[in-house]
């Protein structure tokens, strides 16, 4: 096993394979691919990666660093050649800027650009500058030499919190500025680190971009709604809901839809992949999904707003085989009016009849 691997030196091949099987499954690749993934993950051919930060909270980086497989050290030292990352770099100032510049020159056309954070455009982008350069300039410059751009987090993918109304800095997503390079969005606030890792490994292994949806997200991670794989789904189907935080239903682990869960409108694999290598995710802990992987949900809907369930499926209850009433019967108003008019007609006929002569004394015309 190479020292320059994704994993620490004391990690066995068996563990590598275990990780690879997991990531292979996550990417939706055939099982037989897992050895290829393992080889890619342990090869010396580390892809140069440049990681830029703009308007963001570094939560995405933090999320990545909190993962156990691989450890942060293995990730940045062994798995990829992380040439520039403002939070993790040892260097600073002109030294750091030089390393960025050198790497961009040396790996022109080969490096992967990972962008974290949105880009402000107001007043020529003065609201976010690094080394005297605006975020927009840095981004476009770095993107020009990149093989592909991966936007990590909702800010760089869709604008995120700073693009929410009233958006004083006119922040936009990095994705909207890069036009001539392959762009992959890995949204989430923060995204699951494995979605980023799987995307990188996919590119390494197969030498191409994974299949993307209409929002440029890898389908293997963002192909289905949270709702479809949620562990609380049986409660939804049965109509059992938590109505308030810490009410009886909430304590019983019922469905969080009525607390504003955005699961039915949110495409992500959180309910399957979960977080922090501990099998937890917000919904498992009693908090409704906030729809952070969707451009139109988080920061656009209130946390407590209910979303529309698209393509609803049958619930867990049944219509009666022998329904008691069907169709639309009489209502009092209609019956009254129909009766009134019918009565008027009968009354009028009776009046006519009453006014008619009882006998007609005309000449009898029957023989």
């Amino acid at each position, binding site marked *: 096993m190479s020292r320059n691997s994704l994993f620490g030196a004391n990690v066995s091949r068996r563990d590598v394979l275990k990780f690879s099987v997991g990531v292979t499954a996550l990417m939706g690749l055939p099982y037989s691919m897992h050895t290829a993934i393992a080889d890619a993950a342990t090869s010396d051919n580390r892809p140069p990666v440049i990681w830029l930060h703009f308007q963001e909270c570094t939560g995405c980086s933090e999320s990545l660093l909190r993962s156990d497989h691989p450890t942060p050290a293995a990730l940045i030292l062994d798995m990829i050649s992380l040439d520039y990352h403002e939070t993790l770099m040892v260097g600073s100032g002109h030294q750091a800027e030089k390393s960025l510049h050198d790497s961009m020159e040396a790996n022109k056309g080969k490096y992967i650009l990972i962008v974290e954070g949105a880009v402000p455009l107001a007043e020529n982008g003065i609201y976010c500058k690094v080394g005297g350069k605006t975020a927009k300039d840095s981004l476009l410059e770095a993107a020009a030499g990149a093989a592909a751009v991966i936007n990590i987090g909702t800010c760089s993918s869709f604008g995120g919190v700073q693009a929410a109304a009233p958006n004083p800095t006119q922040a936009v997503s990095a994705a909207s500025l890069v036009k001539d390079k392959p762009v992959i969005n890995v949204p989430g606030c923060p995204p699951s680190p494995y979605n980023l890792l799987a995307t990188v490994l996919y590119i390494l292994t197969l030498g191409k971009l994974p299949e993307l949806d209409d929002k440029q997200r890898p389908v293997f991670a963002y192909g289905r709604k949270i709702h479809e794989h949620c562990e609380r789904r049986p409660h939804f189907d049965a109509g059992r809901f938590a109505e308030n935080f810490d009410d009886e239903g909430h304590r019983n682990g019922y469905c969080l839809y009525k607390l504003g869960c955005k699961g039915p409108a949110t495409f992500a694999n959180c309910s399957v992949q979960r977080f922090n290598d501990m099998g937890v995710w917000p919904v498992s802990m009693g908090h409704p999904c906030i729809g952070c992987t969707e451009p139109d949900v988080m920061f656009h809907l209130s946390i407590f707003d209910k979303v529309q369930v698209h393509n*609803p499926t049958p619930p867990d209850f049944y*219509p009666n085989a022998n329904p008691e009433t069907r169709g639309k019967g009489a209502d009092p108003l209609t019956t009254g009016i129909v009766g009134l008019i019918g009565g008027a007609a009968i009354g009028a006929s009776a009046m006519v009849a009453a006014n008619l002569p009882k006998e007609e004394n005309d000449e009898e015309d029957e023989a």
Partner: protein
Amino acid sequence: MKKTRREFIKLAALGGAGIAAAPLAAEASAPIAAHEDAVGMLYDATLCVGCKACVASCKNVNDMDAAPAPNDADRLWDAPEDLDYRTRNIIKLYKDGEGDFSYVKYQCMHCIKPSCVSACPVAAMQQEPGRGIVFYDKDICIGCRYCQVACPFNIPKFEWPKAFPKIVKCDLCKFTNLKEKGIPACCEVCPTKAVIYGKREFLLAEAKKRLAEHPEKYQKEIYGEFEVGGTNVIYIAGESFDNLGFRELEFDSNAAFSENIQHTIYKGFVAPVALYGFLAFVALKNRKNHGHGHGHDAKHEGKDGSEK
């Protein structure tokens, strides 16, 4: 005048006899038999677990809207109460107080002699020759809803809330799943094979076999074997079919009876033409006798009237 009265009686005999004799003549109609290629489904209520996979896949495959329950303001579920214009297939539950229960699936029964096809004035409701699938062509349909009146199972549904509505009913996925995968969607996804697809002959034999092997499990009846002349979709169940919401139906086909009456009266259009000819003969003769003038002899005419 006497002559006229006799003629009137003759006319009544002619006109009335055809119509009156029709139901009697119609009694002796040929028995209805399924085509050997007829396909259908067998639903075994004792195997159904009520998972509603069939309901969901039917909607997906046939691109139907969800039918939220009236009290479901958030539109959370596709919860039709009955078959409706968004629902071609539904699972219902029969439950009595003592814990006896059974699921039951409803969809078109695909009658061997379908009333809807017989009723439709413009052939929008059709039956496929051979396989016997009853299907609908909205481009021809005039929306008269006679098929709904005629159907003994109340299967065809109408898009009541729409300004440009159509009829909706199960067509055994004729244009979707059956065409693409050779099996209706509901039968494809059923996890317990409670509903299976096949030739009617085979399904009937299978149903009889199950009844023979487990007489204690099943009602003795195969619903659809004889009802309204037989249906291509047949049912076996542990609960009585009355409990499962099925009407008790005559074994004769209403469609065949209706057609026989109609054919008796209108065969070759002979009777209407004869009626016209006879009426013309009488009327022209009467007019000739009456002359062209209009001088009325009230007394005389009065006599005629009283004679009648």
